[in-house]
């Protein structure tokens, strides 16, 4: 596969002083010296220790639950079951915060009442003086199950007569696309290629297991100090516990990894209930095994592509079917399915498109958000399908894609016009060029292959959620800056980006900015750290707020210098006349002047994404997302055809991020996201049999170690066409999306045959080679 160089469209981005520089992140040093206090590192005086009693059955009625012995154990402060919870308050986890409608009766209960639907479902809570006593108490809880027939395969669950997880049937969600005439499009094809791809349950495997501490304060506010991607859960928590919204205070911590796994409510309600009941601080920290059992998984998908193409490479029509396993409770399944549906055919112009997707309930572990959110699964299928079509046409995979790529101004699968830059060709070429020539090996049994994938992944939430964010920027009288913004930081530098933006606008260094974030009571609510939205939403809100402060400063300085405000600038902690920089005032002095005049030096800004209406699920046509990031990843692998082992030799990610606020952070996202993608492709799978997880710890659930990955080269392109601050797009999820299909394409290139299921284990490689020999 060769990639000829080509000049990128010329982009002249305005020069910046802080934004765009590879500065040390504001949170980095505290973490590096071990000073940062994570959710599990915090203690309160008089604190109790909590444990959760969980179902060992995947599908059963609870015939009898007896907690009396547990309650009687000395040192146990309380035991709670569904019986003790506020009446009829069954809560689901929908971080929409805008009151999404959801299938009634399918909400996940806080504690199981009478029926359990998955192994690990919470049934009772214990709080005790020590962790040891709490663990002992769990052993004393007596439970009798009456097993019910369960279903563990979405295909089985869709059949009539299958056990029903939630009435009336197991179809949790469905979306359809009917664009043009797919039947006619396929009929007009010279060649039709059909493939079915499968991807498994995946665990987030953040190194920090879920944890938190809660206490009731002197205003009877339930405080919850917890690692969460969503502080707005305070509303759902309040509802579940039976208190007013303003009596729950979520203090989000620096998160030790989220990736979507800490997007739904995890320990919060348990903590709130126990602290309210005991009137003492309570700590709950999951073990790793409990974390794997208790939190959501990435949706498994079965995706079938049937695509028609002309001999000249132009796609004439496509039919796509998608089935996802929603597990025991819906959580965010409808939206994961939506993302998958909207990007189901990839970043390609397909005028005749029929997509049918469905999310199906089973007694498997529940599935919800995971970096990519359906877009990653869709990409595993569409990018492999593209390579298969190229192969069938005996065309170069990139040349084939070029004939079909979306361009700026084109409309995507559901008719949304893409307004930002679409640099797929350039990204693919740069990524492949960086891969270089295939490594030559002397051993016959080792086959080297190269592959790439080009993908689209949205940034910004579904627009009919009417997303908003708020940020509060202020300048102190000594010229230092404070940013307060509710955005949780899950480790990707969400908080730092806001600080770098504020520093840019106010002419200070990053080290002059202090931030406060992720607090539902004290920082302006900025929405979820999900959907690659924080830079777009909170970055824009922060930019807006900082500009408001800047205006006050410049207007006052203009008075002082007797010049127009637009002839002045802020930099190096000063305000100065652009044409005569020798005339300047320190920011500290300027701030004092403003304060003396009673001017407003702290501004709260609201940023609003475009608000749209919900689309028709029977035929998705319209706009769902604010914009997309277009990405490429290229991989070189060596496959040992005797053992099936795969070694990743080279890895290159090339992404147009619009504008890199902090290039080192963007590189880190590309390297880390692709590492997760490589793990997805090669070794990760939560193996579930009859509802029971057979990979309970990190010994069985394998994520890449430092020896499993090569140095990943990150190529950052900046088109400046994003809708984020300074023309930025988003990188969090896009960093992962192309990596797994790139690996799959590289392996297929190496061994000459396609493996349709992830992960590409050594055993599957040998099976594929055998199959190829026979066929």
């Amino acid at each position, binding site marked *: 596969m060769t990639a000829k160089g080509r000049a990128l469209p010329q982009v002249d981005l305005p020069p910046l002083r802080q934004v765009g520089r590879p500065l040390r992140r504001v949170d980095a*040093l505290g973490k590096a*010296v071990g000073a940062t206090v994570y959710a599990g590192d915090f203690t309160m005086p008089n604190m109790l220790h909590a444990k959760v009693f969980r179902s060992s059955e995947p599908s059963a009625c609870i015939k009898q639950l007896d907690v009396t012995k547990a309650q009687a154990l000395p040192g146990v402060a309380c035991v709670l079951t569904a019986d003790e919870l506020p009446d009829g308050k069954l809560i689901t986890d929908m971080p929409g915060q805008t009151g999404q409608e959801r299938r009634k009766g399918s909400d996940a209960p806080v504690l199981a009442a009478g029926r359990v639907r998955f192994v690990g479902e919470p049934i009772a809570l214990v709080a005790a003086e020590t962790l040891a006593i709490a663990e002992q108490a769990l052993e004393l809880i007596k439970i009798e199950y009456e097993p019910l027939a369960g279903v563990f395969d979405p295909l089985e669950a869709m059949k009539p007569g299958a056990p029903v997880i939630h009435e009336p049937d197991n179809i949790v969600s469905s979306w359809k696309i009917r664009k043009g005439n797919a039947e006619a499009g396929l009929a007009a094809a010279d060649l039709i290629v059909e493939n079915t791809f499968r991807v498994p349950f995946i665990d987030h495997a953040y190194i920090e297991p879920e944890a938190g501490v809660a206490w009731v304060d002197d205003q009877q506010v339930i405080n919850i100090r917890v690692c969460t991607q969503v502080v707005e859960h305070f509303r759902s928590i309040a509802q579940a516990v039976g208190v007013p919204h303003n009596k729950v205070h979520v203090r989000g911590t620096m998160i030790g990894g989220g990736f979507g796994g800490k997007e739904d409510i995890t320990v919060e309600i348990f903590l709130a209930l126990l602290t309210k009941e005991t009137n003492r601080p309570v700590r709950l920290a999951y073990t790793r095994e409990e974390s794997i059992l208790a939190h959501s998984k990435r949706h498994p998908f079965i995706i079938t592509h049937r695509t028609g193409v002309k001999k000249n490479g132009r796609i004439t029509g496509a039919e796509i079917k998608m089935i996802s396993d929603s597990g025991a409770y819906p959580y965010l399944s409808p939206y994961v399915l939506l993302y998958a549906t909207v990007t189901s055919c990839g970043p390609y112009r397909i005028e005749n498109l029929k997509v049918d997707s469905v999310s199906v309930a089973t007694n498997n572990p529940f599935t919800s958000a995971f970096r990519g959110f359906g877009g990653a699964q869709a990409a595993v299928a569409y990018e492999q399908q593209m390579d298969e079509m190229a192969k069938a046409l005996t065309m170069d995979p990139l040349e084939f894609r070029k004939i079909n790529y979306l361009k700026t101004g084109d409309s995507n699968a559901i008719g949304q016009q893409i307004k930002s830059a679409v640099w797929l060709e350039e990204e693919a070429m740069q990524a492949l060029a960086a891969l270089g020539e295939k490594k030559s090996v002397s051993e016959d049994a080792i086959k080297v292959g190269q592959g790439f994938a080009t993908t689209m992944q949205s940034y910004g939430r579904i627009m009919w959620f009417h997303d908003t964010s708020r940020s509060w920027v202020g300048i102190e009288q000594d010229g230092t800056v404070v940013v307060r913004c509710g955005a949780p930081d899950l*480790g990707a530098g969400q908080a730092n980006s806001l600080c770098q933006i504020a520093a840019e606008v106010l002419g200070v260094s990053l080290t002059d900015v202090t931030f406060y974030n992720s607090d539902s009571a004290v920082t302006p609510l900025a929405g979820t750290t999900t959907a690659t939205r924080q830079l777009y939403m909170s970055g824009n809100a922060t930019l807006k707020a900082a500009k408001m402060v800047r205006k006050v400063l410049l207007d006052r300085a203009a008075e002082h210098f007797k010049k127009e405000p637009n002839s002045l600038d802020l930099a190096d902690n000063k305000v100065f006349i652009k044409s005569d920089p020798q005339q300047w005032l320190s920011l500290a002095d300027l701030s004092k002047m403003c304060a003396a005049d009673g001017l407003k030096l702290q501004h709260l800004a609201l940023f609003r994404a475009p608000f749209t209406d919900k689309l028709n699920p029977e035929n998705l046509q319209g706009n769902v997302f604010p914009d997309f990031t277009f990405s490429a990843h290229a991989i070189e692998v060596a496959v040992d055809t005797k053992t099936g082992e795969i070694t990743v030799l080279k890895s290159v990610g090339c992404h147009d991020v619009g504008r890199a606020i902090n290039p080192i952070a963007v590189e880190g996202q590309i390297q880390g996201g692709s590492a997760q993608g490589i793990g997805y492709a090669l070794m990760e799978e939560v193996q579930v049999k009859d509802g029971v997880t057979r990979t309970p710890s990190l010994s069985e659930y394998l*994520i*890449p*170690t*430092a020896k499993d990955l090569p140095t990943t080269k990150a190529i950052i392109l900046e088109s400046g066409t994003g809708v984020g601050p300074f023309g930025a797009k988003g990188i969090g999820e896009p960093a992962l999306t192309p990596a797994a299909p790139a690996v799959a394409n590289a392996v297929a290139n190496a061994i000459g045959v396609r493996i349709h299921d992830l992960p590409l284990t050594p055993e599957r490689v040998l099976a594929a080679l055998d199959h190829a020999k026979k066929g």
Partner: protein
Amino acid sequence: MKAKAITLNVNGRRHQVTLFPNVTLLEALRDLNYTDVKNGCEKGDCGACAVEMNGKVINSCLVLAWQADGAQIITNAGLGTMENPHPLQEAFADAGAVQCGYCTSGMIMAAKALLDENPNPSETEIREGISGNLCRCTGYTQIINAVQMAAKKMTQQRSQQ
């Protein structure tokens, strides 16, 4: 089960604690507020709990506190402070090697052990040295850059002494 008084020398401080035998060194350290030592798995799979014990980097979740009686223990927080960070801590912060930071303390202890034995490691040797420390955020590339940066700085510092 009877508790026993033991001595843990941690980051230059002497602690006398009375503990039951089934308490791990990880639990004992965190109860002494050395919360930079993290619990990621409690079974030696992730390396987040790595500390140096009598000169060797180990998983503190797999050592009983009684087995560490009298030992010299160094945790990441003992290597440096925000005012005066260790070259590894500084390099990690500058190279982007710290994203969520949860693996960082254990990772730095493993990197220190590597550099103690091999002051100028190759990329392969670094990957080997941190192969027992899982990171889910960075993909390890910037961590390797950080270790290489720190190695250079530490060699410089040594030659200046």
